């Protein structure tokens, strides 16, 4: 029989209760007559503090509080792909459905929804065992496989901390709750559970050595993210955080995408829901939605569930990583998660730290980002999997000196600084070329896989842009006339790099995704132009003549090249540049 306590205080999402002597930290409790879901976040004497994941309107002193006896967990198993959940993994489509009308219940109501499980209990899967009775298995070993989508083999693993001898196996059609393998007589199902606040174990972390390719030139060429690494995208409102996250979710070469809409707009998730099923993953020819899991806790949904949504998402990501997949997780926005933490902390009357955030903010952030990684998975088959994290940050007033940006910076390996001024001029993606950086050394990979001088081109471009920035400062003071011709050529080329290479519309059919080879050829043409022009200047050509070259218009349209023809196009354009400049 579960213990029943009683409410003594209600302040927004925070409820204090007494009469639950056996409560444990992070246990789930059900609060009040509507059985609102809550989580124990503090124990103090005989008082239990709970953050409630639903609106607490109407809750009274004396209302009952029932222990669930378990921590906040997610359900793991086939059927997650293509789903959309709220911050505590309730299935939003099922919640919107009433009788025959799939949207008959368009508003999220409170309570009574514990009855809707995250994973469909009726759906039948074809389980193909990979073990036989008598076989000894350990944590992480593959027990069998379910084709979750046409392309993804969902590996059913021995859960962490379990081992034993297979005593019975059942092949064929099963639901997630039916046993498929018995370990020493104990049944295991496709459905497993894991507490969200605890990271899932692995053998060891490996150094990130390969990039997560995004098809975005500013990212892959200048500031690449490693598979298993972490990146942050801070930027004021309207600078392109969400578009960047969604674009990466569409095009990144990951097996699985976990997209967390954390305290942001409802319509942005609708956007994903409408667009992703219609887009085809070029690697599998399947709808993109089939590799995507959405966690949606929009800004008007209860604030405490926003805090939980990040953990729900990362736990699901780790679960697929453990099967040996590459997972990319986007969290938009981590600032809303931090603010949820602050709001709850404020109601707890904790001692506030910087800007009212609790003192444990940096620890929590670090714990979250540390759940990224390329790892050797548990299990005897040497699987390698990864979770890459891309966290958007929404600094107040667009000022990066605030705590969430600063603490995230200390942990994340890649920093894509979005710039308000660039966004206002509609330079997208508004990734600032001198403020952004990556700590991952991936040049070797690119040199081997794309072109031997990839890294050389990258360094050339970064140096050129830095030089351009310095020169522009001088121009702002004294005008361009004061510069030498070679310096003015840097301004010209710098502009080409910015406008014709770095700018990339997420909404252009051709340019939204740019393969690595095309990225390389585009930049190489600009570099070639720069060299040809410099030779011409030394021969006595004027900068005005150069600014009037017809080939500049062709350079501006490189982005529209068919990727398959990029090499040939680049070669032709180099020739055209040489030809035209030779007449100066």
């Amino acid at each position: 029989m579960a213990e029943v306590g009683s409410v003594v205080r209600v302040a927004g999402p925070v409820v204090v209760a007494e009469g639950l002597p056996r409560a444990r930290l992070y246990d789930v409790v059900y609060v009040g007559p509507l059985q609102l879901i809550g989580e124990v976040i503090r124990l103090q004497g005989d008082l239990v503090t709970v953050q409630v994941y639903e609106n607490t309107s109407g809750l009274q002193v004396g209302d009952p509080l029932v222990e669930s006896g378990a921590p906040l967990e997610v359900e793991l198993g086939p059927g997650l792909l293509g789903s959309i959940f709220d911050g505590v993994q309730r299935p939003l489509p099922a919640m919107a459905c009433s009788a025959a009308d799939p949207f008959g219940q368009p508003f999220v109501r409170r309570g009574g929804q514990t009855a809707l499980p995250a994973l469909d209990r009726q759906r039948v899967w074809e389980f193909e065992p990979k073990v036989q009775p008598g076989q000894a298995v350990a944590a992480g070993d593959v027990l069998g496989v379910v084709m979750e989508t046409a392309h993804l083999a969902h590996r059913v693993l021995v859960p962490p901390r379990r081992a034993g001898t297979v005593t019975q196996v059942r092949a064929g059609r099963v639901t997630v709750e039916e046993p498929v393998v018995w370990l020493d007589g104990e049944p295991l199902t496709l459905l497993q559970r894991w507490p969200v606040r605890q990271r899932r174990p692995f053998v060891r972390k490996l150094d990130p050595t390969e990039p997560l390719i995004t098809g975005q030139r500013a990212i892959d060429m200048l500031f690449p993210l490693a598979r298993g690494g972490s990146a942050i995208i801070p930027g004021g409102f309207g600078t392109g955080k969400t578009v960047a996250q969604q674009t990466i979710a569409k095009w990144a070469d990951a097996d699985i995408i976990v997209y967390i809409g954390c305290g942001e707009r409802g319509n942005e998730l609708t956007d994903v829901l409408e667009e992703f099923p219609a887009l085809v993953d070029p690697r599998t020819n399947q709808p993109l939605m089939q590799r995507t899991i959405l966690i949606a806790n929009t800004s008007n949904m209860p604030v405490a569930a926003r805090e939980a949504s990040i953990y729900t998402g990362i736990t699901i990501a780790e679960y697929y990583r453990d099967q040996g997949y590459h997972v990319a997780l986007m969290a938009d926005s981590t600032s809303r998660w931090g603010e949820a933490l602050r709001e709850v902390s404020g109601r707890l009357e904790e001692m506030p730290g910087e800007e009212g955030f609790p003192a444990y903010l940096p620890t929590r952030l670090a714990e979250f980002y540390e759940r990224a990684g390329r790892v050797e998975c548990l299990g005897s088959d040497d699987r390698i999997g990864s979770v890459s994290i891309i966290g958007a940050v929404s600094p107040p007033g667009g000022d990066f000196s605030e705590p969430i940006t600063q603490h995230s910076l200390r942990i994340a390996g890649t920093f894509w600084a979005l710039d308000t001024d660039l966004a206002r001029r509609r330079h997208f993606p508004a990734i600032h070329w001198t403020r952004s950086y990556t700590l991952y050394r991936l040049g070797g990979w690119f040199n081997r896989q794309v072109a031997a001088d990839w890294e050389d081109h990258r360094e050339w471009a970064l140096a050129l842009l830095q030089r351009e920035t310095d020169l522009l400062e001088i121009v702002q003071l004294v005008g361009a006339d004061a510069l030498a011709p070679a310096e003015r050529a840097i301004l010209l080329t710098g502009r080409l790099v910015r406008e014709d290479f770095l700018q990339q519309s997420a909404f252009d059919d051709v340019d939204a995704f740019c393969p690595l080879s095309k990225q390389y050829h585009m930049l190489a043409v600009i570099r070639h132009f720069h060299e040809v022009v410099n030779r011409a200047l030394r021969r006595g050509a004027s900068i005005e003549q150069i600014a009037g070259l017809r080939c500049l218009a062709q350079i501006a349209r490189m982005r529209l090249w068919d990727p398959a023809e990029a090499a040939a196009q680049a070669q032709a354009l180099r020739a055209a540049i040489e030809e035209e400049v030779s007449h100066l």
Partner: protein
Amino acid sequence: MSSLSQPVSVSSSTAQPALPGRDRPSLVTIEYRTLTHITGPLLFVERVQGVGYDEIVDVLLPTGEVRRGQVLEVNRDRAVVQVFAGTRGLGLEDTRVRFRGEVMRLGVGLDMLGRTLSGSGLPIDGGPPITAQEWRDINGLPINPVARDHPSEFIQTGISAIDGLNTLVRGQKLPIFSGFGLPANELAAQIAAQARVRGAEEEAEGAVSQEFAVVFAALGITYREASFFRRHFEESGALERSVLFLNLADDPTIERLLTPRAALTTAEFLAFDQGMHVLVIMTDMTNYCEALREVSSAREEVPGRRGYPGYMYTDLATLYERAGRIRGRPGSVTQLIILSMPDDDITHPIPDLTGYITEGQIVLSRDLHRRGIRPPIDVLPSLSRLMNAGIGPGKTREDHRSVADQLYAFYAQGRDLRRLVAIVGEAALSREDQRYLAFAGRFEQEFIHQGDANRSVEETLDLAWKLLAAFPIAEMKRIKPELIRRYLPSLPAQEEEED
């Protein structure tokens, strides 16, 4: 002006369910005289029993006046109550408090159309009480993102800076960031009068009217400003399709926390139950945020940036996110939110948090205003995030996106050069640079500036091409060659100013 003393509209009906999830009798008669503390807009009542968080409260004065309040916190036998009409004149000894056992509700009905109500929803136009078809919790419920229909129908406002560059769509939430003395109200009224949806034939069946119904929420604005809007609605014939909620400058400040909620509850009813397209105008949200801050400081909460509460983002989101469309339902709620940026500072928490929630923003500029540009919209910091969904072939025109991008690119360049010219003089500029500079001027004078004119989107785009024609084709990097061939007027590259 406040008639809060008569709880006519906000329900006390016994037919109503009590607090959600319980069947406590709603005729509660216990009155408490156990006030221990009054501070700012807050009352602290002790030795209470069975009080629910968020529940509404009647505060009874010895004069017979009744003020409405709401429970902000319950802690054992103590309740913290915020009083919407303020605590002025309340005493600890002779004030009585009655807990109503229900959350704040508003009676909504079709006969609200054409009516003027107070900031908490009571008729103040001398007309009869509203016949409530339904009583609704004014806090509403979050729309399940799965059930949202993505807004995508182009609204023509007749204003080039909006239609051409920051297109509004039905179901969008778009604020106007203004400053004291800037004509945000005029702009909002012009939009309300001119807004129309094109291609209305393809309308989902069941919509009762193509025209917008207007729900107007005045938040602490002056009588003069409120009557400006009323007159405008009258002139454009929108008044009988409008509901006005007025909390004026001299009305109780804390009541402002109710006003947008009452307005949005009405809008949701008209849109999602009655199938109307509703335009909600809320002005001035800055006053709303001040009220929020007042309550927070009275509660001695840890303040966030510049003294505004840390939960202001969430609070504003629960208002702004009540815009949109719902699958399978014909109506829509479009929000036009006006706010004043203190010190014209766009990084101030009020515009900042708003911009983080809304689907773009229209930013007014003091500089353009001084130079007589009407409307003085600075397009660079302005944005419509839903523009892409609402434009293009079949909606506006195929060249729309690239024309907008090109205008932005040229104008941003021209604006940069203005700074440079201030230092080195115009003569020092190259021919190309002088062209950008001249473009920026004409763009402001001819494209942004339009006074009372109502331009179709085609007129707006044609005007854009006329201005773009000042540049050589090779410069128009943002536009595909075939579009240039199709739309570029064959004008001499340097056409003379006209106006």
